């Protein structure tokens, strides 16, 4: 009877603790956004309402959310693999651009091939392009000890220049130079390289299915294969992994190859499913949104999918507020930054048993008589010391 009561109390207190943290994180993120919105003289509540409801009002809005969701899922999966392996991949943006441009090059080089050969080839080459670009950072980290955050950020800037150079130079649509306006873009890809649209009249394409399949595969990879175990072990405790005979450096490189590969695949899918030609702003910040999606989804494929849908909604909603209420596009960056900061701040409260303990003891000292506090299982900290 007595133990039952304490355990109920403990459960109540723990849920109160977690609810408080989650609420705190949400209030902080939404609050920072609201503060900036207030500064530019719009009503934050109106903006948030438009972002969260306007895209859901018609079929076009919903399919557009799903169009944004596909690359977000893929990029976030790659980032989750990297983060879980202990390497922070900030370079998805660049890896995606390299994936796009290599996929486009292959599609334009072999326009005669039939669809069952060309389309898979284009997607795979895109993934390989991204994987190699990500692999550079993995190699530099594993062999030269180069901080991967700095190297991936630098590789982003380099990839953007490579991408721009190829679009403006060797790969530009010749007609743009002779009769067009010189817009840096390639010619339209051959039809055999197009991903099918799922609903006619919208831009929703088969990439979504690929992304969902990949989410399952990444789950299997990370939790059901030896490679996945090695990756997670290298990320969780590199020293212990090394003692257990795991080649940690190799794991880092493998993780970055996977991570970049998923970003490259996201690029190839965006290219063949949505635009069907390489244009300048095709990656449009997906690489950075992917980081937020991965963190928001707890680096787990099962939660990354809903998280990607939510951020797809956020991106479309932000587009709509930009058009309807003149909220600058950079506002998305503000919200994403605020969300990252709140998530990482809240995480330490979840992970750190001492913080929870301290909080629970404070709570219990308010509500319980002194002697019962001794019985409460949460006060086992004295024993640990």
């Amino acid at each position: 009877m007595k133990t039952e009561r304490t355990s109920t109390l403990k459960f109540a207190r723990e849920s109160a603790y977690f609810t408080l943290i989650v609420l705190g994180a949400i209030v902080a993120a939404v609050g920072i956004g609201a503060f900036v919105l207030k500064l530019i003289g719009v009503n934050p509540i109106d903006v948030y309402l438009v972002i969260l409801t306007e895209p859901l009002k018609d079929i076009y809005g919903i399919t557009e959310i799903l169009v944004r969701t596909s690359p977000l899922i893929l990029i976030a999966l790659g980032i989750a693999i990297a983060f879980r392996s202990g390497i922070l991949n900030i370079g998805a943006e660049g890896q995606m651009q390299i994936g796009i441009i290599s996929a486009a090059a292959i599609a334009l080089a072999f326009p005669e091939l039939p669809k069952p050969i060309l389309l898979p080839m284009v997607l795979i080459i895109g993934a390989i392009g991204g994987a190699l670009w990500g692999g550079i950072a993995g190699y530099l980290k594993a062999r030269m000890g180069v901080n991967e955050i700095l190297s991936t950020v630098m590789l982003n800037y380099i990839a953007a220049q490579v991408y721009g150079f190829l679009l403006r130079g060797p790969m530009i649509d010749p007609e743009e130079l002779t009769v067009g306006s010189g817009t840096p873009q390639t010619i339209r890809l051959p039809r055999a390289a197009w991903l099918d649209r799922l609903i006619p009249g919208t831009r929703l394409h088969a990439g979504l299915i690929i992304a969902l399949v990949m989410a399952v595969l990444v789950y299997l990879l990370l939790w059901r294969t030896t490679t996945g175990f090695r990756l997670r072990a290298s990320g969780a405790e590199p020293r212990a992994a090394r003692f257990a005979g795991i080649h940690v450096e190799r794991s880092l490189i493998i993780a970055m190859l996977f991570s970049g590969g998923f970003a490259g695949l996201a690029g190839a899918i965006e290219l063949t499913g949505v635009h069907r030609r390489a244009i300048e702003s095709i990656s449009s910040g997906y690489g950075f949104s992917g980081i937020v999606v991965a963190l928001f989804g707890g680096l787990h494929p099962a939660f990354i999918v809903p998280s990607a849908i939510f951020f797809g909604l956020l991106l479309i909603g932000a587009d709509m507020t930009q058009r309807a209420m003149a909220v600058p596009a950079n506002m998305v960056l503000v919200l994403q930054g605020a969300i990252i900061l709140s998530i990482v701040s809240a995480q330490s409260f979840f992970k750190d048993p001492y913080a929870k303990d301290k909080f629970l003891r404070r709570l219990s000292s308010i509500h319980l008589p002194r002697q019962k506090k001794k019985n409460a299982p949460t006060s086992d900290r004295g024993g640990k010391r």
Partner: protein
Amino acid sequence: MNPVDLVLNILTIGVPFSVALLLASTGEMFNQRAGIFNLGCEGIMAMGAFLAFLPPYFLKDVLSPDTANLLGLMIAVFAGALLGILFAVVTILFRAPQGISGIGLQMLGVGIAGTLFRHFVGGVTGVPGIANFPIPGLSKISFLGPVLFDLNPVAYFAFLLVPISWFVLFKTPWGLRVRAVGTHPRAADTMGINVARVRFQALALGGAFAGLAGAYLSLCQAKMFADDLVAGRGFIAVALVYFGRWHPLGILGGSLLFSIAQSFQLSVQVWGIDFPYEFAVMLPYVLVIVVLALARKSNKRSPAALGKPYDREKRV
């Protein structure tokens, strides 16, 4: 053009370029010496650049140009310190992982600066900015004069900060405390140093430096603000700390070398060597990676507790 003029030209462009990197990098050095890896430098610089730009832009009819510029610099420094403290709250108080928090701060800073800029200013607009101040007499020396003594007042201040930073870090009790909490926080704690407080102070100082670096970009170097004004300089500054082996003189050398390389690349573009400009633009970023790869040994000299949150209640 004869070789002396060529070198002179490269140097007179390169030395002013180095100031923003030098300032941000020195600030980052204080952060890292205290054990905190602040990747939000880029975001703080963007905020500093934008806020410093505001007074000369909006108050040009109310205040004299000098007052407005000074006000801009002060706001940038103050806002930089505040953002440094925000980062401290996240990484020290909440013990969040520093790398990803830094990316969050970068997005937040660049996002806020961009949003407010688009709303209040609209497009790229110039300001008079702070003019160069040739030091009388010295600036007339041939060769050295135009390179070293015809600079922006903020640039002189930045170069003056190099020996001052060295003195503060290595010769004052506070500097010793900073190095102690970055090397062995538990030992420092045992000796009665408040680890969290020293780290907060170091982050505020580093943020102020980054804010000033941003202000230099918008008020002194570009004399305007644009969304992508900072263009990765914050990240380059972090890399230069590694290159400079966490020492003010090394950082001075690194930022000079780096900006001279950049000005060399600009000269190559100007003097009509046919070369796709994209490759010239990517050169500095390639250089950072190469430098980091070559500076491999110096990674071992990094402050021992760099990047590790300190929790005095945790058992070791």
